[in-house]
């Protein structure tokens, strides 16, 4: 068996992995292996032929493949070894890895540091438990996106889309433009799951019906989907009796959420955040295993690729520091506690004495919001669970927390007298 001994191994060459490789190189690492199971680098970006990528990072409006191309070009101008068609099959607590590809067969990798950049996967019909028969014609929205945009096939003529995540809304527009009919986009929450921008540009602009506070309760059809039953739900997401109605369709797309892809992490003994599904990390994005970092959607599902790229760059730099023995770790640590109205927050622990960037997702939409991180306060016109907000604290903002060993993050409506201030 071939053994590759390297400074850094990166699993996944999506935007996170590519940015990590480029930045690790820039910070001085020499011997880098970038492992990707697909035949090309770029990850999910390839199938996202719509625009809206890079607005923050490049201040330009690019399509997914264009965005990917910029990084692929940068990457190929370095000597990072990009291994395509390469599936990492095992990751062990001692940081050794096993992978398989057509060229080297099954081989072993012994890296000094590792960056996890495996992205995420979509929840399936069964993982949300929709009852009914098991016909053909049920797809996750991302699979449908690949079939349409990469393979060139339309999976149906009359669609119902369950869930209004970004992929679901983008696919509604996509199949509509292909001449198919979108009978409805059905969303259980009182608001869309994805970005408001996509609600307007993908649904309203094309008069695609959006049914909020509704869900699919049953699927019909033996060989192929023939229709679905939908119903209205109450504030507890319980189905309201007598509101059920049938919709004829031949295809059901599911855009019901993404889960960070962490099978390898689990095998290695990396602790995961049960809410987010990604690894528990410190502010260097390092996991509980020394020298293993996580970036992009494997850590948490980002709405914007620019944040994924930034994650990648940070981990690349930190992995380089780690390999050089320069990553500063304090003897004590601060635990980050999600408080009132907070659904998720990263990092989970603070271990160094540098500035800390927090990424926060709230539980429910809050207008005139005030975000509290320890004693640090910041005001927002509105905070929404569909978008992650980032705040950066200086080392001095954290001084008071080292004693208690914890810092609480919370968010609430500003009180009346303050709202005018």
């Amino acid at each position, binding site marked *: 068996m071939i053994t590759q001994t390297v400074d850094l191994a990166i699993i996944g060459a999506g935007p996170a992995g590519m940015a990590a490789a480029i930045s690790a190189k820039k910070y001085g690492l020499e011997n880098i292996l970038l492992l990707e199971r697909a035949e090309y680098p770029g990850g999910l970006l390839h199938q996202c032929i719509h625009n809206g990528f890079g607005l923050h990072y490049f201040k330009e409006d690019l399509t997914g493949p264009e965005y990917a191309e910029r990084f692929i070009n940068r990457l190929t101008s370095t000597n990072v070894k990009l291994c395509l068609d390469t599936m990492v099959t095992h990751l062990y607590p001692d940081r050794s890895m096993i992978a398989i590809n057509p060229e*080297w067969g099954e081989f072993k990798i012994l890296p000094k540091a590792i960056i996890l950049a495996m992205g995420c996967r979509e929840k399936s019909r069964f993982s949300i438990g929709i009852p009914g028969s098991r016909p053909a014609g049920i797809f*996750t929205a991302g699979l449908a996106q690949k079939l349409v945009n990469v393979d060139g096939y*339309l999976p149906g003529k009359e669609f119902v889309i369950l869930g209004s995540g970004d992929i679901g809304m983008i696919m509604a527009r996509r199949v509509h433009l292909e001449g198919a009919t979108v009978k409805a986009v059905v969303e259980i929450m009182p608001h869309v799951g994805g970005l408001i921008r996509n609600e307007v540009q993908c649904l309203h602009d094309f008069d695609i019906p959006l049914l909020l506070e509704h869900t699919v309760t049953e699927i019909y059809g033996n060989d192929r989907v023939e229709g679905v039953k939908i119903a209205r739900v109450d504030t507890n997401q319980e189905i309201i009796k007598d509101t059920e109605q049938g919709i004829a369709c031949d295809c059901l797309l599911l855009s019901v959420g993404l889960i960070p892809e962490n099978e390898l992490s689990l095998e290695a003994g990396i602790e995961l955040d049960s809410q987010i599904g990604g690894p528990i990390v410190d502010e260097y994005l390092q996991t509980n295993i020394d020298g293993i970092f996580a970036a992009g959607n494997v850590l948490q599902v980002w709405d914007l690729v620019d944040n994924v790229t930034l994650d990648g760059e940070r981990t690349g730099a930190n992995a380089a520091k780690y390999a050089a023995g320069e990553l500063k770790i304090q003897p004590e640590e601060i635990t980050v506690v999600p408080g009132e109205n907070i659904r998720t927050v990263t990092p989970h622990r603070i271990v160094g004495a540098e500035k800390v960037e927090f990424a926060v997702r709230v539980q429910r939409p809050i207008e005139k919001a005030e975000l509290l991180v320890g004693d640090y306060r910041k005001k927002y016109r509105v905070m929404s669970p569909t978008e992650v907000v980032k705040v950066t604290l200086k080392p001095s903002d954290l001084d008071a927390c080292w004693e208690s060993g914890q810092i609480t993050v919370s968010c609430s409506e500003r009180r009346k007298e303050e709202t005018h201030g």
Partner: protein
Amino acid sequence: MSGRVTETQVAIIGGGIIGAAVARELSKYKVDICLLEKENVCGFGITKACQGLVHGGIAYLSSRIVKFQGGKGLKDYLRHPFNLKERMGNIGREEYFALAPLLREEIIQPGRLMLAENKEDLEMIDLIKELADLQGIRGITVLDRKGLEEKEPLVHPKYIGGLFDANEAVVLPTSWAIAFAENAEQNGAHIIKETEVKGIEEKKGYYLIKTNNGSFKAEYVINAAGLFADEIADMVGTADFAVSGWKTQLLIFENRDYIHHLLCIVPHPQKGRLLIPTTHNSIVVAHTFEPMTNKEDRSTTKDKIDELMTWPQDMVPAISHKHLVSSFTGFLTFNTKNPSDHLLECPKRGFINAVVSAPGMAPAPAMAREIATMLAEQGLELTTRSDFNPYRFKEPRFIELPTAEKNAKIQADPRFGHIVCRCEHVSEQEIRAAVRVGARTLDEIKFETLAGMGRCQGGFCTSRVLGIMAEELGVSPLDLTKKGGGSYILESKTKELREAI
């Protein structure tokens, strides 16, 4: 319908676990065998939804308790000697263990852990232990809370004790049905799929079986049509029974080290729930009961799923709802003539009804032997074949080979090094091989290779598998189906629909 007539000595109707096991048993002898199965895979009938327990130990006692209608006399009822079903089950179990290495199938023996919540439960456990001793069943231990925790650290704190039965074993039934059929075929039996029996005419000295795929002239007929065995029996006028039963719904979760043994609550009349660790790292939550009203209705329903969702956490609170993988239904059947036992009878010369009542998977190898004996009694000459090969030829899964063998394969054909299914690690070349041995649909690929069976349920590999299948078969992906018939997957090429408008 073609006018072709095939002659055979024995026709087996139905390639479920029973029909397939019979085919393999008979292939040991110099006999012409045709197995007629209406689906395109064996084991896609009742067997497909089977939770896969190969009972041993106390299982039959506890299912007696669950079935008990209430009232007095439970103890006496439990003391009854084992019936045909229970006896066959126990013999069949031994055979599964003996056959596993021959058929290259898996059987695991996680054992069964029965959880007691209160004093009443503990009393029931003592009773079961007493009866197990009486029946001579070994491997049974009574546990206190500490003993429970040693076996299953995550078990709910409300359980104060329990009973451990080391005998319980688990298989993947459809995979076994396929294995029986393949080994039979390798020994000369004809396994004829996509062939539905539509009618049977009784002639002088033979039966003429009409199907959508020509007719079959057979001296002996074995009716192993499972759910539809009553309809087949009716074709020769021997249907003095119906196949009836319950519709059951089940869930599958990922098993993230949650459980290592089969868990059940202490059985009470009309009440039983199971968490079953499977051979491939999942947990089956079994199962709800409702009357079976339509044999074609395989749909799941919200109320039952909601009910099932509460069970795992009631036994092991750590099991996260996020790790739900799938839900499905199955039919737990019995024959109305003798509801608590199997129906094995020869109502007409050369015609055998082999209709099992649940649990009917575990006894399959034992039933197959019994059926061979019955055929011999009916005059079929059973001469052993000297060239019978008990070993099923099967390529092991690529990912399970040792590194050196993997690498030899990749060197010979680099497509082994191209992993297509990320969850089960299936290589491109295995998909191609499956197509070459006859897989035509996505579901067949799934059963043959496991591609699409894992946690993402095909979200990642479907598009790749379609591409490989189309290339291998020389067809367009538009021609491919999920499970035959009208279950097409893709509608049109992009742009076609738009241009048509």
